[in-house]
């Protein structure tokens, strides 16, 4: 997180500079939307909550300085709004197959799999099924586990940042993340009769620390 320049943008916004707040919005709108979408698994509602997150932050900018890390503050607001929405609207999770996706890092991901398999319906069906199963596994988690899994593994936030976002100790973040991954892993393990290419032995597991330096 680029805390210093973000901090300056929000300080300016607090003094009435709407352009500064708009610049902050442009920088992080995608991240916040992705978070709310994965949290709610509902495209329209994620739009609504993303907008509400930024508007709510704007109207409460006087409270911002207490926290110090701008994006963390936005994740806190977005997470609380998502939890309230889930409680009050009794949302039925939508399967995300038709939601528009984009390639974020140029690597092969599920979108690529879906795109590249247009002429091979059997792959498309399997891939769509996989996307649905992953989302279902995430949605089946208790909310306090789901939130941590999304923040750490999809949003790439560090344990320390997640601890700040949720007002928890880093140790609690780590142990909840362990339980969340374990539940998701167990559910998804049933999907495979054969090990995907990237499945490694336990001896290789520590190599993955290098693959994902963001956490």
């Amino acid at each position: 997180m680029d805390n210093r320049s973000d901090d300056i943008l929000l300080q300016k916004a607090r003094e009435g500079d709407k352009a500064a707040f708009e610049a902050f919005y442009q920088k992080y709108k995608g991240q916040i939307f992705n978070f709310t979408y994965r949290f709610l698994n509902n495209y329209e509602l994620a739009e609504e909550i993303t907008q509400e997150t930024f508007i709510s932050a704007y109207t409460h900018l006087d409270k911002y300085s207490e926290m110090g890390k701008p994006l963390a503050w936005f994740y806190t607001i977005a997470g609380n709004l998502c939890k309230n929405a889930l409680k009050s609207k009794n949302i039925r999770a939508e399967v995300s197959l038709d939601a528009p996706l984009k390639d974020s890092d140029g690597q092969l991901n599920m979108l690529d799999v879906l795109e590249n398999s247009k002429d091979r319906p059997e792959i498309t069906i399997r891939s769509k099924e996989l996307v649905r199963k992953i989302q279902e596994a995430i949605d089946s988690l208790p909310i306090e586990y789901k939130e941590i899994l999304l923040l750490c593994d999809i949003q790439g936030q560090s344990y320390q940042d997640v601890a700040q976002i949720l007002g928890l100790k880093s140790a609690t973040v780590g142990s909840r993340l362990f339980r969340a991954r374990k539940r998701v892993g167990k559910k998804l393990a049933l999907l495979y009769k054969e090990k995907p290419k990237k499945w490694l032995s336990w001896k290789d597991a520590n190599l993955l620390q290098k693959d994902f330096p963001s956490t």
Partner: protein
Amino acid sequence: MVKLERCKFASKRLSFYLDGQLSDKGRIIVEKHLLKCKYCQKEIILLRNARLIVRSFSTVKFPPRLDKHFSSILHKKTN
């Protein structure tokens, strides 16, 4: 198949280990433990695979119409 005996070591340290959150000393303790504990060997594969799958989720495309709505609301607001 023999069921492996549950190991309490796992819940406290394996995710931290996987995410590179342990000190050198902590990392060495986990690695030594992994050499001898079949339960934790199984656990770390499960955790690592879950992390890999969840992280493979694509970013969702941002809805362009939200920009218009946001801009219009922001300009009507005073903080």
